[in-house]
Each structure stands twice: as C-alpha cells, then as structure tokens.
C-alpha cells in the first residue's frame, strides 16, 4: 500500500472500525487463547502441572480419530449441504418468484428455527425409530410392510435431522442476497436469449456463492461440533463422531486440556474451510449484486410453477416444524409414548405434563432474564459483526483478513470447552457470577453467526457505492450508517432474529456462567430434555414454541419486521 493510499484511509477515518474490530477480536480470542494455553498443561483439573505437549501427543497417538473424523466430515458436510442448499432454494422462491401467499411463505422457512435441535431430535426419533417409530408403524399397519423402511439411527437419519435444522440459517443468509439483486445482470442474460432456468443457474445462483459458502461454513462447523444428534442418533447406530472425544475428555477424564487439544483438530478443519471461503471470495467485486444504479428487484413470473414452489415451501414447513410439532403435542398429552398409545391418543389424553411444567417455578422467572439478555446480546453482536465485516471488506487497512479467522474461531470450539475459557478469565473478578459474564459469554458464542452473516452480505454490495461516498469526502461513519447499514437491513433483521432465538435457548455456554440463585430460562426449561423426561419436555417445548411463535408474529406485525420484499 502506498503512502498516498494510507493517507486516504486515514482521511476516511477508518480507525474507529479498525479499533472496534480489534477490541471485539481480542474479546473473542482471549477465551480461545486461554483454553489453548490450558491444552499445553497436562493433568486433570485440580492437578495442573507444568507446560508440556502431553495432550497433543495423546491426540496424535489416538488411532480412532481418523474413522471418527471421516464420519464427522460426512455428517457435517451432508447436513450443511442439505440445510444450506434447501435454505438457498427457499430464499430464491420467496425473494424472486411470484409464489402466492407471500406473507405466509416468507415466514414459513423461519418458524422451524424456533424449535431447538434437541426437540427435533426427539420428535424425529419417535417418527423414524426402526421398531417403534411412527412412520414404520404406519407402514406396517396400513401397508403391511414389516421391514423397517426408516431408521433414525443411521448416518442418513442424522443428516436429515440436523440438515433440516440447518435450513433457516441458509435461508436467512441467502434471502438478503436475492432481495437486493440488481436485475440488470439477469436482464442482460435474457436479452442475450437465455431462458429463465438457464439464467437462474448461470447468473443468479453463482452470484449468491459468497453468502452460500458463508452459510455452508457456519452450518458445517455447527454440525461438526454438535453433540445431541450424534449422541441420541449416532451412538445407538454405532456411528462415532469426533466431537465425542472432546466430550469424553471432559465427562470421563475432566481434562479440559485434552478436550482443547482434541478441539484444535476442529480448529484446523475450520481454518481450512475458512481459507477455502476467503480464496473463493477474494475477488469480491465479482459477486457484487448491489450496485450504484437505481433499480427495482424483478420478480420472476414462473407461471404455473408457482404452485409447485408454494408446495415446496409448505413441504419444508411440514418437515421442518409442523410434523415434529404435532408429534410433540401428542406426546405431551399422552401418559407415555409407544405406537399404540400414540395412534389412539384421544382415549389417553390428559394435561398432567402441562401441569407439571407450569408448576415449575423457575420456568417463567428464568424466561424473563433470558429474554432481556438475548435482546441486548443480539443487538450488540449483530452491530459488532457488521463493523468487523465492514473493516475487512470496506476499509483500506491491511491485514484485516485475520478477522475472518478470529471472528469465526469460537465456532470451532465445543461450547463447554469455550465456556471453561470464559470461567477461567472471569473467576476472581467482579464480573464472575454476574449477568455481564453471561452476556460476554453469549457474545463470544454467537459472534461468528453475526459476523459471517454480515460478511456474506457485504460482499454483495458493490464497492462503487462506497467509493462514490469516499470521493465526495464522506468519512467511515457516513458510509457505514448511510450506505452499508441501510442496504444490509434485511440481513440485519435476519441475524437479529437468529441470534435472539439461539441465545434465548442457550444452555451449553450459559450453564457454567450462571450464578447460584440466578434463574436462567433455558437452563431450567431444557432440563427436562437433559434428564430425558420426554413427555414433560414435550409439554415444556410446546409452551415454549407457542410463546415464541406468538412473540415473533406479534413482533412482525407490530414492528413491521421484514425479511423479504
């Protein structure tokens, strides 16, 4: 970079976003560095001895990790591909086609986000279990098929359940791209004689690649470190995944250092996927779909296919939330689950499970704390994520690509490992056992989602918009608040929604950071899932889902939150 360029960068006042990103980066990387340091000490908690590489030597000597890693990569890759691909397709349907019932269709792919993955796991196990599953039972009862066609305890079953859970993230990442699409790019193709399907495949979808990869990377890393699906579905099917080594190190050996050493393998995989992402999007202007020219996004008339796309969205809605939700509702009103009782539920109905849940004093008290904290964390995290993405893609400071890695790093660590780092930092300070510590923990845990979302979206804004402002003497704040932020509005709305929903049900990070006496909603609500009381868990889940569905619908109407056109 020349001295002239540096002076220009200084004149633009890029120092604030750079400093803000640096501070955020340091907050994020500190717990990571603490656990990494810890991995260089051998011995269990309480017996720390000097620095050495024993944990890493154990990891390298572990012959079982290769088959586990290959299982993990198949599972994470399959889930991320299914989730992101389906999410992208739904985003395109909602944003670019004349599919009927826009208001409803826009929200349908989002509602499944409200259902926590563990609830989906349980519902799909009840549906797909080989001997006692509802679907296999129906096939036997109505079609006489005795062979178990469906099996939840297989790799395909795992990919299906987690992949379906990955769809909303893909949808939220790709929707803003399709919404803010400059139609001149497609019009050029039409003028050149291209047919709509061809244009879609050759122009529209390739331009969404950065956001697609961004969502894919996130979903891939989420799946890679996810624990519920491998435990509930993988273990009974003898499918061992890598993350179980991390958890065994914590649960059996109580050895944070070893758990971190195993997590470093995940960090390496994350770094490789990020490197791939950075390489793929290095010529960001190629993917800019939002340019300086005035335009109105063109909705494609897909003719009678619009009914097919409508049916596709409804199908996803059915698989993503309606069917599992109905299963949970039935399970919550019957005394116990087996196929016969499930099918004859009207004669077994009762509200005992609801009474049990509503008598749970911590349920409502805890929910108050978590709602408040989740709103604040979502706002701060999303804003900081955009600032960091802006620093990387829009300021002229050199070396900012490191933030790509730092901003995504927490995602490589299983939550329990990450929260140990946070506890080590906070213990002995006034922050320990306070809502501040919990808030910072949630910030670190969810920053990658906000950041990757902003990063994927910002790449799609052509630099000419900023450059026009720079030429007219604008400083960073003018560019950021007057140009970037307003254009990113749909992405911001989606990210706020996503992080709020994720934070409000967080248990893994929160559990070590909540103070004695501090009731925190998710910890108490999901206790039923944790202790395996599925009937009570279903009742709690149904109440929780109804509250969220009503809250989201009211918020959408009251504040006119808009995720699409």
């Amino acid at each position: 970079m020349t001295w002239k360029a540096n002076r220009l960068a200084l004149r633009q006042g890029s120092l604030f976003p750079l400093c803000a990103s640096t501070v955020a980066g340091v907050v994020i990387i500190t717990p990571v560095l603490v656990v990494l340091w810890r991995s260089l000490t051998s011995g269990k908690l309480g017996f720390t001895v000097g620095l050495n590489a024993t944990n890493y030597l154990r990891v390298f000597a572990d012959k079982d990790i290769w088959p586990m890693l290959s299982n993990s990569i198949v599972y994470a890759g399959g889930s991320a591909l299914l989730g992101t691909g389906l999410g992208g397709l739904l985003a395109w349907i909602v944003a670019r086609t004349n599919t009927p019932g826009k208001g409803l269709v826009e929200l349908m792919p989002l509602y499944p986000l409200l259902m926590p993955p563990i609830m989906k796991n349980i519902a799909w196990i009840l549906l797909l279990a080989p001997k006692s599953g509802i679907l296999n039972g129906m096939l036997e009862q109505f079609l006489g098929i005795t062979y178990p066609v469906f099996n939840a305890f297989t790799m395909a079953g795992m990919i299906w359940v987690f992949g379906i859970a990955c769809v909303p993230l893909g949808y939220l990442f790709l929707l803003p791209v399709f919404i803010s699409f400059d139609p001149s790019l497609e019009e050029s193709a039409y003028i050149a004689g291209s047919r709509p399907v061809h244009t879609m495949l050759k122009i529209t979808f390739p331009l969404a690649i950065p956001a697609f990869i961004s969502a894919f990377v996130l979903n891939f890393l989420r799946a890679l470190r996810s624990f519920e699906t491998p435990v509930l579905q993988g273990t009974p099917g003898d499918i061992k995944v890598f993350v179980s080594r991390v958890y065994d190190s914590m649960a059996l050996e109580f050895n944070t250092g070893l758990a971190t050493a195993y997590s470093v393998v995940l960090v390496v995989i994350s770094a490789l996927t990020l490197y791939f992402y950075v390489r793929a999007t290095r010529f960001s202007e190629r993917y800019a779909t939002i340019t300086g020219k005035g335009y109105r996004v063109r909705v494609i008339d897909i003719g009678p296919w619009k009914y097919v796309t409508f049916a596709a969205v409804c199908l996803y809605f059915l698989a993503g939330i309606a069917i599992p939700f109905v299963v949970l509702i039935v399970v919550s009103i019957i005394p116990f689950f087996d196929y016969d009782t499930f099918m004859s539920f009207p004669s077994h109905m009762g509200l005992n499970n609801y009474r049990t849940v509503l008598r749970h004093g911590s349920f409502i008290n805890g929910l108050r704390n978590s709602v408040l904290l989740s709103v604040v964390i979502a706002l701060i995290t999303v804003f900081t994520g955009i600032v960091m993405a802006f620093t990387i893609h829009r300021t002229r400071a050199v070396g900012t690509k490191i933030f790509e890695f730092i901003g995504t790093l927490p995602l490589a660590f299983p939550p329990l490992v990450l929260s140990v780092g946070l506890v080590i930092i906070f213990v002995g300070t006034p922050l320990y056992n306070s809502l501040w510590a919990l808030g910072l923990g949630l910030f670190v845990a969810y920053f990658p989602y906000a950041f990757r979302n902003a990063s994927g979206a910002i790449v799609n804004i052509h630099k000419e918009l900023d450059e026009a402002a720079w030429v007219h003497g604008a400083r960073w704040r003018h560019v950021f608040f007057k140009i970037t932020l307003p254009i990113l509005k749909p992405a911001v709305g989606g990210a706020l929604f996503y992080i709020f929903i994720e934070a409000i049900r967080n248990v893994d990070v929160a559990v070590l950071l909540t103070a004695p006496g501090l009731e925190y909603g998710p910890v108490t609500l999901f206790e039923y899932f944790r202790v395996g009381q599925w009937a009570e868990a279903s009742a709690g889940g149904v109440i929780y889902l109804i509250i969220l569905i009503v809250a989201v619908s009211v918020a959408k109407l009251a504040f006119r939150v808009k995720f699409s056109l």
Partner: protein
Amino acid sequence: MHRKSTMVTAIALSASFFFGAALAAEKAPTKEAAKETVKAPAAPAKKPGGQQVKKETGSAAATANAAKAYAQASAELYPKAKQEGNLVVYSVWDVEHLRVITEAFMKRYPGIKATFWQGRNPEIVTRALTEFQGGQASFDVVLSDNAPPVIRAAGAIMDYNTVQREVLYLHDPNMATVSLQVQALAFNTKKIKPADLPKSWEEVASPKYKGMIALDDPMRAGPLSSMLAGLKTQWKDDARLNNFIRNLKALGVPVHKSTSAMFRLVISGEYAICMPALLHDVMEEMHKGTPVNYVKTVPPVVFPRQAGIYIKAPNPNAAKLFAEWLISDEGQRTTDSIGRETSRNDFKSKTSIESAYGKTMKPLPVTDQQFLEDPKSWLDKYVKPIWEG
C-alpha cells in the same frame, strides 16, 4: 506497511492486555493450586477416606442414637450457620428438586439463605475445580453422585464424618451419603414375558437376548460401568468379569450415552430390556401406568449420592448443617417426596431396597475407590482392553 504495522501493534497490545489479565487471573491461583497439588494427590492415600462402609439393616437403637446425635449437631451448628447467613449448593439434581430441598431447609433453619447452581457432573467438576484452582471461596456443598469423589480426589473436599453414620446404608467417613442411586434391570411388559426375563445381570449377556437389549455405554462413567465396578468388588473374580464384558460385547447391541433416552426407547418398545434403568424412573412410570417393570430377582446396583463440603467453603457450618439435615428424618422425607431414593437403612419408602425388592435382597453397592475417584483410569484398566480390544 505503516497501516499494517499499526494494525498488528493494535492487536498485539490489546491481546497482551486482555490475555495478560486472563493469564494473571489463572496464574496466581495456579501457584496456589500448585501448593494444593502437592497435598491433593496425597489426600486419598493419607486417609483411606472415601471407603464406603455398607450397613444393610438398621436397629431401633441406631435410629435413636442418630436422632440424638442430629439434635445435638443441629444445636451446635445452627447458631454458627445462622451467623454465616448463606449456603451455596452445586448440584446435578433437577432444579425443581433443589428448590423443594432448599426451601424445606430454609424453613427448618430460618436465617440461612440457601441458593443453588445446577449442572451436569462434568460441568460441576469443571466449575468447582476451576474455582478451586482460582482460590475462590465460591460455594459450600456439592450435592451429586459422580462429582463429589472426583472433586475430593483433587483435594477440594473437606473431610466430614456425619454424626448419623450409624443409620446409613452406605457410609463414607469423609462425605455424607444423603441419597442413593439405585439401578434396576427394567423391561417393557408388552415386549417380553416375565418367564423369559434374565434371572441375573450375567444372564443379560446371553445370546438369546440379542436384539432385545438396550445397553448403556460401558466406556463412560455411567450406570453400566458402575455396575461393572460393583460386580468386580462382589465377584472378586476378574476372569468372570472379563467374560461377562466379552459376552455383552458379543451381543453386538447398540450402546447409549444417555440412560434416560435409552429408558424412553424401552418404554416406546424399541427395545425390550433396559440395562440398566434408574429405579425411581421405573417406579414413576409404573405409577403412571406405563408398560414397564423391573426384575425383582436381580440385585439392584447402589451408588452413593453425597454432599461433599468444599474445602474453601465460605459457610462451612451451614454446609455441615445442610448435610446433617439431609440425612435426618425430615431431610429424608423431603428427599423421598421428590422421588429420590433415601440413604438411611431405617427409612421406609417405596423406592427403598427393602420395599422394592424385599427383605432378603442383597444389593450390589459401588464402593470401588478407584472407580469413584478416577473412572477413566478404572475403565482403561478393566473394561477397555476387552470392550475395544
């Protein structure tokens, strides 16, 4: 380049500041922990503490003695505990159960404010030992099953021998056993006839049960590994134990890392036999009319649930009072009311061994010190070579 160096410097300075602070927070305690470390490993060797003493039946005299000793301890501890004013409990028990327990305790002993934090065993151990290494006087009692012995092995539990030891089914001279975890061989009554059921734990490994059994993962610190530890102590025959593990492995049945999820799958009819289930879960389901039952001829595995007092407890008297109260008649009644098994041999409840299995039943207690304090090394030594070999 100027900008690049500014960027690098900014990151380096901020990182060194934050990371330095974090390391400082870790470093100071580590020094302290190093001192503890010297003592810690020696603790179990110094005291044969933690050795579980089994006393299956009580006597009227023992009950009277225990009541008298509790009254005396209560009179001594309460004024001091009241002065301390607080009690912080870390526990694996359900939040609602902890709420009932702490409220009953506060009602019995006004002036003491009891709060709790709930987590799973790995979370409890992680939090407690991180605080211990950080020199924090942050909590008073760990109320759990697997966690207290592990925390004690790190030197973070204070020795406390309960005054009511005479009436305990399983007594540990260093920690109060306030409840028992009882594991039963459960089955789905729709899926298997009583005549076809296994008559012993060993018979479960018979090939005829292949495809019918849900097995807890023997390579985790869970119910099945506890049972293996109990069988090892009882059989005193390693060849027999190895054969049992080998036969279980030969069944080629799925293993589960979540005992509760496994039990739900037995209820749903996915499996016929649950190896093993928690007795209070089975009883609760039977009460609801669920088609499950347990084999009354197979000895239940008994694992202690203890109240370990933290070595740096800010309110040690309140902690001792709480442990004593939990073992007292009132405490046991409260424990029974939330569906948890009591620890006294003179307390009658539906989940007591005597009422669930009859007077003649000889349960299988888990008393292996190495298993309780370091389950990983025990499993590596006795189970892994056969299970994964």
